[in-house]
């Protein structure tokens, strides 16, 4: 049996960074989120999993308001998510997002992809934004690619650029929406390595992923989604060794 090391120093600062209360979301008549209530602490790493259509992606997309919730409250970093545009923009500056399909801007170089938002939104001087971007590219291991265009890079490299782009805004929270699902097996590792490094830096992360090895290693908490609800949550050892819900047991038996 493997023991999971809790990064103890992270748990000390107990501070709620994301609070969701009774979150509901409908697409037309389809009830996608049916009352999500959860609290995520600063520095916590949460892995959300579950069958497709279970609402896990929708859940993290409501956190930076890419999807609008119709009932319930979300409070991110002390700011309540309302329809106020200033609040939404403030939260989006604080929350970085990485997408399954990378969504890099194909008409801009890697460097411009990363510096665009810091310059335009954070009003950072171009030279400093560039220095920061190079620093981040070194951190994700592709500093030499900064003048290329996204379509000249491999999938794994593109996703690492996407992570650097999100980090350039110096967010407090990072959301990952199935970051490795569109990647070939040998590229999954290079992206997960970057994410592991991010975990050790103390970043608050919510990761929608079925990379169970990764979850076992770094997650403080796992959330099993099914039919718009969190059917079970808890530390990885509980989820993997002693799941309480039959739905979780069944799902894990299918994917492991």
């Amino acid at each position: 049996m493997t023991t999971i090391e809790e990064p103890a120093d992270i748990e000390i600062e107990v501070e709620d960074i994301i609070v969701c209360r009774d979150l509901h979301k409908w697409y037309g008549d389809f009830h996608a989120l049916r009352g999500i209530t959860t609290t995520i602490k600063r520095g916590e790493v949460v892995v959300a999993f579950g069958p497709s259509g279970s609402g896990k992606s929708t859940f993290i997309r409501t956190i930076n308001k890419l999807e609008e919730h119709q009932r319930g409250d979300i409070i991110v970093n002390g700011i309540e998510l309302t329809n106020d545009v200033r609040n939404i923009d403030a939260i989006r500056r604080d929350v970085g997002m990485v997408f399954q399909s990378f969504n890099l801007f194909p008409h801009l170089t890697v460097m411009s992809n990363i510096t665009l938002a810091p310059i335009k939104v954070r009003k950072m001087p171009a030279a400093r934004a560039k220095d920061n971007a190079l620093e981040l590219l070194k951190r994700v291991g592709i500093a030499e690619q900064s003048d290329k265009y996204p379509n000249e890079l491999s999938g794994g490299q593109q996703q690492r650029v996407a992570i650097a782009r999100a980090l350039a805004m110096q967010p407090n929270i990072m959301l990952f929406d199935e970051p490795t699902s569109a990647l070939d097996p040998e590229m999954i590792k290079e992206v997960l390595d970057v994410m592991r490094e991010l975990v050790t830096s103390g970043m608050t992360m919510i990761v929608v992923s079925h990379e169970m090895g990764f979850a076992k290693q770094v997650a403080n908490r796992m959330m099993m989604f099914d039919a718009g609800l969190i059917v079970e949550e808890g530390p990885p050892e509980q989820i993997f060794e002693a799941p309480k819900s039959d739905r979780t047991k069944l799902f894990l038996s299918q994917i492991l």
Partner: protein
Amino acid sequence: MAMNLNTASASELPPRSTRGMAGWMHANLFSSRFNSILTVAFGAALAAALWFGLRWIFLAADWTLISTLGGRFIIGQYNAESACPGSNCFWRPQAVLLLFTVLMGMAWGITGRGVMKQVAIATAAAAAAFTFLPYSLDRMGLDVRLLLVANLLALAVGWGLARYTPLGTARRTAILGGSAFLLALVLLRGLPGVPGLQPVSVIYWGGLMLNLLLAVSGIMFSLPIGIALALGRRGQLPVVKLLCVAFIEIFRGVPLITLLFMSQVLVPLAFPENFPQDSLFRAAVVITLFSAAYMAENIRGGLQALHPGQVEAARALGLPSWQTTLLISLPQAIRNVIPAIVGQFISLFKDTSLVYIIGMLDVVEIGRSFIQGNTEFLDNALELFVFLALVFWVFTYTMSYVSRRIERNLGVGER
């Protein structure tokens, strides 16, 4: 003994291609009996067309109509005695051409070895070549010929401005281009009381100069108006959306020739009574708006083809929606529809000859009305229209060539 299927060095080479003329012909022209018949039949048709075509051009055709009209093809009645009494106004359109050449030189200076270099050199060289025409271009004296040669100098000046002065940025050149367009209009129209710039009424403006003025103003203004309409149509504001849809559908739904005719009545109503306006202005407005309606739909198509993840990624980074549109959506959308946009520009350029319906003498109408008034040339209509077709083709082909080169440089279609 272990089998290794991958080591034979011969297998590392691609299959031998059928090289040589005979091999190529066998593969592409005579690969089957049916293809051989097609090849022979089309070859014969092509040869016959070439034979009769060239014989007509060099032996049968009478090109005196073209040389008789000469400079009038280029500027219409602009330099006629009635338009410019007592002096020679030919230098003014030529000064406009010089301005244009300077701008082309600047575009070359900024973009370096790109397609702009080719177009700039071709423009200046063609203008300079006119100097050596053996016949007179409408009261063409030594001064006029010298001004044509000066295009080579203008090209060099523009290139130098872009390379060695702070003007050499795309934005500053674009601003200069806009100012040059206004300056060109003032030069052509003239200023009352200024010696050498006696006013020339727009009813005398004509020829290729008229087509090009309408095309340039149409291109300059229809793209931004089209973008605004496309964004309005896709936007969240119901009233703006309705207005944009109504505008697009009305201007697309009516033939341009009808719009031009109606402009004689409708456009004057939209402006104060003493607003300085004339038939040329009205024509320019109608052509621009007509083209903008089509442009809007082209741009909208480009916006719709964008992956929604692009906007999501920009919004997730905290970019406000106007910056998302300006920096992320539009640049990609426009790139993706460059072929359609250039197609619209080409169509706009050809449509400028429709202004004959409101009594303006564009390059086509100059020729047509001349034949009508001089019956000894009635038999030369074919020569006239072959010549006009060539003139239009040179301009439209240039546009399509430039567009193809730009697309290749931007890597459109490789994504």
